[in-house]
């Protein structure tokens, strides 16, 4: 019998040691909700003197500061319904530690020697976690708001750029109508085509939903369609075709490539086919090999060196092509013969130079 009492006492001591050492605040209450044992963490977190807890009714603790209605509800539910209560949220201004948020976990456990129940009451401090979650939610809202603002600004910028280009193009066309010199009119119309070439990049950036890169094949096709629309007709019949590898080009480079194509196609259509009845053909080709690329514009016209061709020293168009190619770190090479002319703009490294 004595051994049995010793074993019970040992078990009780062990239970008390376990309760006292757990990291989360923990109370053991009897069925009158009087504190039997409190964990060290409970004393530490709630800043309560360990001498004040044993045999003290929970709701009188800290001069009644623990007389919390929500706590009454939880413990009564635990005692009466014999249920396990998990994650019962209590937001309370505690006497010593101020406003805190706790999740309470209560469980009715084995009876005491006289058959009465015990309640284990655990506290999970979620004050900081909730504060962080709240801050995170606010940050997410702010980020979403900034993203919307960015989209709006981008759309606004896009609209203004395109509208400005349309205004410039309109002024050039109005001026082209007003001048009496045919040569000046041609220059103004060429300038209009250059503006539209830059505008085509903007249109593609807008339609692709990207602000940094352009899918080069549809861009060149659309650009040449636009050039053909303004330059090829009954008085100047010709076929303009585009072949291009699948590649993305940063928008700044796309503008330069577009302007080069514009200049070379204008030159070809203007000077390569003095005989309108000829089966004229201009081909634009863009090839990619790793980081290298080659843009070529070729025609089956009369080639350079005839009366209708641009001067050998090069006009504005030729200078522009050279300057734009330099900007792209590319080389320009022109091959001309009786079968036509071919201008290649090649960007190649020393390691993998492409054949021109």
């Amino acid at each position, binding site marked *: 019998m004595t051994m049995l009492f010793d074993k019970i006492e040992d078990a009780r001591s062990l239970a008390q040691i376990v309760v006292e050492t757990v990291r989360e605040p923990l109370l053991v209450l009897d069925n009158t909700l009087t504190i039997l044992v409190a964990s060290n963490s409970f004393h530490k977190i709630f800043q309560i003197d360990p001498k004040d807890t044993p045999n003290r009714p929970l709701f009188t603790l800290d001069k009644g500061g623990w007389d919390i209605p929500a706590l009454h509800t939880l413990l009564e539910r635990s005692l009466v319904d014999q249920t396990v209560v998990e994650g019962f949220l209590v937001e309370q201004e505690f006497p010593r530690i101020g406003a805190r948020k706790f999740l309470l976990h209560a469980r009715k456990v084995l009876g005491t020697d006289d058959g009465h129940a015990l309640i284990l009451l655990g506290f999970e401090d979620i004050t900081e976690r909730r504060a962080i979650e709240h801050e995170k939610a606010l940050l997410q809202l702010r980020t979403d708001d900034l993203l919307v603002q960015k989209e709006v600004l981008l759309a606004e910028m896009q609209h203004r750029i395109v509208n400005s280009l349309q205004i410039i193009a*309109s002024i050039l*066309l109005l001026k082209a109508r007003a001048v009496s010199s045919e040569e000046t009119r041609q220059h103004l119309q060429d300038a209009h085509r250059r503006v539209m070439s830059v505008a085509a990049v903007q249109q593609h950036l807008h339609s692709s939903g990207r602000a940094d890169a352009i899918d080069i094949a549809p861009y060149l096709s659309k650009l040449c369609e636009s050039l053909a629309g303004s330059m090829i007709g009954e008085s100047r019949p010709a076929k303009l075709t585009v072949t291009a590898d699948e590649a993305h080009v940063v928008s700044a480079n796309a503008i330069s490539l577009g302007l080069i194509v514009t200049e070379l196609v204008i030159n070809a259509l203007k000077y390569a086919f003095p005989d309108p009845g000829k089966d004229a053909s201009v081909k634009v080709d863009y090839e990619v090999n790793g980081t290298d690329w080659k843009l070529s514009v070729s025609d089956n016209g009369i080639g350079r060196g005839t009366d209708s061709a641009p001067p050998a020293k090069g006009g504005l168009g030729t200078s522009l092509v050279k300057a734009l190619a330099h900007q792209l770190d590319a080389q320009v090479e022109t091959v001309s013969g009786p079968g036509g002319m071919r201008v290649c703009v090649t960007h190649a490294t020393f390691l993998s130079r492409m054949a021109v």
Partner: protein
Amino acid sequence: MKGLWHLKRRSKVIVNMCQAADPRTILVVEDELFIRMSAIATLKDAGFWTLEAHNSAQALEILSRHPEVSIMMTDVRMPGKMDGFALVARVLIDYPAIRSIIVSSNATAAQASNAGAFGFVPKPYLPDTIIQAAHDTAVRH
């Protein structure tokens, strides 16, 4: 150009007599002066008779006085209470015979169609593009 002016003046006289819509009379609504001027010049050269407005309110005022208008070509973003979409929707109710073409840099063809427009031309556009759009609309009128 001179010939077109004569045609236009003669057309107006006929309109006043019989109040009929003319399939080649276009109202261009655009707040940017140079874009509007260029569009008007382009359409006139292509044989259309044109009227112009710089915002939606002025467009509605012109439409109330010019029953000969059969096509309206309008920008979307313009000063005033009514944008191009709202203008197209209003014209569809008040003047169901008029067909609208939306010209815009920031709208889509789907948005234009939802507003009740017959055609859509994205900016920036070539002169031939608006001529073609106007021609297609006139032919189907």
